[in-house]
């Protein structure tokens, strides 16, 4: 890059901060800023966004000065399985209910590690579900339907 060497981690970090600063800053501009005496809803976030962009710029400048350690390995497989798991729980908890949501979530998360064997995963997922339904649903009585409206046709009511 034009003969300037950037430390990749720092460059990326600066860009992330600037991106967030820009996002919050632009949104703040759409709100009432107000005055220092009567601050509007946009005042405080606008100031903070400005600081964040500034910090991002400083980090990018620093990225040309120092050479840090490389970023290192990234847990792609882990991210691919761990991150969707809670989303699936959120999507299924209302229509399908606690039991099915839990089965899906635990099954997906079980494959985050390449060491997991499928039959062990099955045992583990069933154990987690039985335990969690027992403790949270029957024991603590959390207000969640065990089987959601989409499963009403099954007539399961326990």
């Amino acid at each position, binding site marked *: 890059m034009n003969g300037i060497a950037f430390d990749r*981690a720092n460059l990326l970090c600066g860009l992330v901060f600037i991106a967030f600063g820009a996002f919050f800053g632009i949104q703040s501009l759409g709100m009432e800023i107000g005055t220092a005496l*009567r601050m509007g809803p946009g005042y405080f976030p606008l100031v903070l966004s400005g600081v964040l962009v500034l910090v991002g710029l400083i980090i990018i400048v*620093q990225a040309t000065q120092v050479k840090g350690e490389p970023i290192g390995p990234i847990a792609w497989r882990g991210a691919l399985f761990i991150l969707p798991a*809670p989303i699936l729980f959120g999507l299924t908890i209302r229509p399908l209910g606690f039991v099915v949501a*839990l089965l899906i979530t635990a099954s997906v998360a079980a494959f985050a590690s390449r060491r997991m064997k499928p039959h062990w995963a099955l045992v583990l997922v069933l154990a987690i579900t039985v335990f969690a339904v027992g403790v949270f649903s029957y024991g603590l009585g959390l207000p*969640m339907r065990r089987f959601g409206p989409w499963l009403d046709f099954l007539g399961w009511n326990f």
Partner: protein
Amino acid sequence: MDLFSNLALGLGVATTWHNIGFCLIGVILGTLVGVLPGIGSTATIAMLLPLTFGIGDPVSSLIMMAGIYYGAQYGGSTTAILINMPGESSSAVTAIDGYQMARKGRAGVALATAAIGSFFAGTVATFLVAIFAPPLTGLALKFGPAEYFSLMVVGLVSSIALAHGSVVKAIGMVVLGLLFSLVGQDVVSGVPRFTLGIREFYDKLNFVAVAVGIFGIAEILRNLEDERTRDVLMKKVTGLMPTREDFKRMAAPIVRGTILGSLLGVLPGGGAILASFASYTVEKRISKHPEEFGKGAIEGVAAPESANNAGAQTSFIPLLTLGIPANPVMALMIGAMIIQGIVPGPNVATQQPELFWGIIASMWVGNLLLVILNLPLVGVWVKLLTVPYYVLFPIIIAFCAIGVYSVRTNPYDLYTVVFFGALGYLLVKLRCEPAPLLLGFVLGPLLEENLRRAMIIARGDATVFVTRPISATLLVIAALVLVAVLLPSIRRKREQVFVEET
């Protein structure tokens, strides 16, 4: 005397069977998760936090949270000693000599020393909290919005100073945390801010979801990067009882560690970490045989463990008196209190004495339970170390999902978890520490509210922050700390400290 009648009131609350039971569950669960290598006490508490909401009674649930905290810390030390893998930086120092003791077959003694040191420190620190908290609440009642604002600035600045790595990045993390805390309806005008038009975010981002994401999920992803098998040194730990010689050698370091830890723990921004490191350095300096340090010196376990625990306890002082969290764990505590409908701050002591003194007394009960429980159960914890990670991930994820959802039964909170999990992992990869972000997230709304109020009271005159003496003093402290960490000479020293520590 007031102190004793207050403590008696607290003990009365803390020692009902009901509350002892919750404290016990907390301590067991905390140790159980804390003992897992690579999962620090902040992550442990973030994951277990939702469990405490089901209890309903705020006193019991906060007592259980405190139990989880002590358990997690002790679990972390156990891991540090047995497999040289500290769950977090505050037990990193223990790993140095503790692991060497374990290699010499003295793992049992090391664990017992850690327990005894922690218990002594916990007892002393409980009294210190009981003595110093009430007068400080008196002072805090004189605080106006300007003082609160400046005090929070001090807290945020100290968290920057005590973060690992780059100061500039830590500043960025605090600011980012502050910005995220503003998502939701503005308290004054009712205007929705940064909600992306999603109604579910009008009521702010769920604090538990943010904490679970940024500490729990991110930490799991980090563990998945490199799936090594762990070497458990002992399959069985024997010989818990320290010898007479051991007792003689650990006594003074425990006392010194306790004093140092109690002092540093009050500092906002993460004093407990600093405390364990500082007390290790002190012991090494004044020891008659410094050459033994790093090779299994019992002082090297006794002092930092005591300091660590004392600091963990006294960090409740700013929380209980001012409502200001001294570290990410206290930030979680504040979050828990707010969810229970308690506004942390000076009014807690006067309006809810049972809660206030109950928590203080439960600190001591928690420490006692730890000693009673952990020494006989060491064998179980050792077994747990051999449970492979890949079995734990689905369990943790399932419990996190249930926990976060149960807080306000809002599916969007689960999407928040994932967003902050991914962001937390990305930022850790870019060498940014997550603790300042969480502190900023917790303090953000209070900071803005007090800033706006102070400006209105002062009729828009910004000098109010420097003309009111307490506020001015606090801002001077914040400025000095910030200048100090940016000075080249201190910066180098600070980097050295953190390099040695990790």
